[in-house]
């Protein structure tokens, strides 16, 4: 294995550094420069009408973020441009986000953005312009073998590890990716940003969904999907109450169900299922949320596709625990048997499979049992 940050023997790489305006991508770009690469910074404008100023710490496409990215590029001493990818972002990420919720699924737009924007639209444009790689501030590691094959691994900082949202990258995308921060902790990266005099050293982390600036996902969905009254039912189909739109519920949700009648056994009830076709929300006891089998569709493999049953671990949330599992790729499906049940898995979430720290691949959860 070799350190991917060392320039190859045949000379330095032309690297396009995606710079969000945050501390991580700034330090990543600085490290790519220090590793001897020829680096150009690009900030993606993902909102057609950027807000003048950031609201709270959220968001990644305000004018302020764009300026922060530009100042970081100035300090690092690299050329810097803003590329408008608002239209692609709206089509591939935002519209998809709304459509998935409408279909009763719970998508993760960050995975989608990595798959369709950063390592597709942006990477394609970069390669077309003669760049060799796209560099980001994700906390994940690429391990390169002497034969040139690459593996995606978790960050050494498990608290910050972002390999989950990169689990959608295929081998072609991985071949042109550069993650300079995977071998360090977030704390070290912040200290390094201070040492480098980067103004973003103390900037708060972004979180939540960048295109929902106020964090109100339900409000965002209500604006795009409107309200549609439907029934809240139990497992037998008995009506227990009403809702204003099934998309507003999440599998495993307990609060805010507005069910007048208590359950027969007196125990709290949770959202078990969301059916957009019938516009119903099914509720039931907490035990019914436990799932030990998953069926995933749209598999994406970060290396060779697994053959037969493989022993692995499965992660179903960006900051979730991993669970021992046995997975098998069958045609376009991935079947996962979990060694112990996981509570509250929604269709549309991604399941990312690991072999130790290595990402095997991912799939979109389409069914549970």
């Amino acid at each position, binding site marked *: 294995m070799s350190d991917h940050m060392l320039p190859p023997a045949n000379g330095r790489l032309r690297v396009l550094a995606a710079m969000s305006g945050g501390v991580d991508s700034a330090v990543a770009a600085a490290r790519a420069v220090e590793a001897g690469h020829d680096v150009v910074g690009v900030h993606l*404008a993902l909102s057609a009408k*950027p807000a003048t100023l950031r609201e709270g710490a959220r968001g990644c496409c305000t004018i302020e973020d764009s300026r922060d990215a530009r100042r970081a590029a100035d300090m690092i001493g690299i050329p810097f441009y803003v590329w*408008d990818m*608002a239209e692609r972002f709206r089509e591939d990420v935002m519209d998809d986000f709304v459509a998935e919720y409408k279909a009763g699924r719970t998508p993760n737009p960050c995975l989608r953005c990595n798959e369709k924007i950063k390592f597709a639209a942006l990477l*394609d*444009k970069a*390669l*077309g*312009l003669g760049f060799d790689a796209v560099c980001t501030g994700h906390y994940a590691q690429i391990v390169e073998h002497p034969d040139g094959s690459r593996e995606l691994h978790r960050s050494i900082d498990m608290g910050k590890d972002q390999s989950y949202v990169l689990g959608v990258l295929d081998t072609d995308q991985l071949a042109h990716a550069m993650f300079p921060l995977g071998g360090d902790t977030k704390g070290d990266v912040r200290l390094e940003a201070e040492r480098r005099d980067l103004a973003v050293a103390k900037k708060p982390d972004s979180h939540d969904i960048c295109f929902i600036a106020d964090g109100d996902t339900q409000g965002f969905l209500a604006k795009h999907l409107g309200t549609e009254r439907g029934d809240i039912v139990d497992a037998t189909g008995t009506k227990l109450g009403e809702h204003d739109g099934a998309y507003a519920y999440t599998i495993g949700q307990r609060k805010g169900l507005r069910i007048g009648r208590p359950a027969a056994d007196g125990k709290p009830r949770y959202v078990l299922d969301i059916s957009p076709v019938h516009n119903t929300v099914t509720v039931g006891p907490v035990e019914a949320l436990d799932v030990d089998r998953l069926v995933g569709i749209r598999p994406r493999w970060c290396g060779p596709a697994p053959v037969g049953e493989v022993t692995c671990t499965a992660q179903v949330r960006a900051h979730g625990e991993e669970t021992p599992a046995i997975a098998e790729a069958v045609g376009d499906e991935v079947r996962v048997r979990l060694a112990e049940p996981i509570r509250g898995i929604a269709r549309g979430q991604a399941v990312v499979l690991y072999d130790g720290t290595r990402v095997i691949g991912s799939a979109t959860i389409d069914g549970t049992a």
Partner: protein
Amino acid sequence: MAYFDHAATTPMRLSAIRAMTVQLARLGNPSSLHASGRRARRTVEESRESLAHALGARPSEIVFTAGGTEADNLAVKGIYWSRVAADPARRRILVSPVEHHAVLDPVLWLESAEGAVVEWLDVDADGRVQPDTLRAAIERDPASVALVTVMWANNEVGTVEPIAELVEIAHEFGIPFHSDAVQAVGQIPVDFSATGLDAMTVTGHKLGGPGNCGALVLGRGITPVPVLHGGGQERDVRSGTLDTAAIAALAVAAEESVREQAQYARRVGALRDELVRRIMAAVPDAQLNGDRRLDPAYRLPGNAHFSFPGCEGDSLLLLLDARGIECSTGSACSAGVAQPSHVLLAMGADSARARGSLRFSLGHTTTEAEVAELGEAILPVVTRARSAGSVAARR
């Protein structure tokens, strides 16, 4: 390195740098009454006379401002307000859609905040307002027109507007006329009095003077409502301490650029023609935007503006920048995001053509070697940008 962005800003002339640095070392507020103040005042007034002479105006018609944007705002808002104050029925602003944002945005603000009625004067495929268009717009209701504003020459595609003819029409109806001449002074003959203009914007850094110093040339009968209130230093129309050093440099640069204008137009025009020839030879499907008559009567001598089919302007700019060749996508920026040019869209171009365009603007320091450098680079750059464009479109 090759610099093809003189329309954004052009190097300061040595004479202007000299004039500016001499003044920077001197003391005195031109509004002060003591000897230092009088000395500064003398510099300002001599500069005013010199600038007025260069522009075909009287010294009393020069109102110094902090650049072109301020002068445009003062002209558009100030004249609108004073015309409406005199007669509330005057709500119409007749404006070309190819104006710089320093004119467009005040006009749009007057529409949204002050109840102005904006009427766009359609331009032809070269971006030019036809006199009949203005006449028809005025004649629909002459009494309701507050002002007309049409730029002298366009900053993106270099089209020279028929200002004298347009002014004559507006004056038949007694309507004041403002023109943003920021791109024109020093490039083509500009004579304020001869055209009969009521207000005209000029700025220093497009003609080899300092940034952040310009002037509104204001006919003596015109009294716009001030935008900036304060000490009333400039005819009570514009307030703010006068920047003696910048004003001195502006006057020197303007005097020199106007004195050299004819020679400049010949020399730079020839370089521009050579650039157009080389680009068309290298990339035969490139489209020259704006007036194809490469004559200062129709097109600024330093302007070449192309659309490159299948390319994104930002890709071209990055690739040229990496080779040390600097130009512009000639478009407005918000958060640094390139928007398709409103000028090209107004000229009838589609969004793809507008996005795939570059402005090359030549100036007083442009050399044959720079033109050759760009001529050599353009084909590989366009080829590369096309592959990036087509890759991006494929997925």
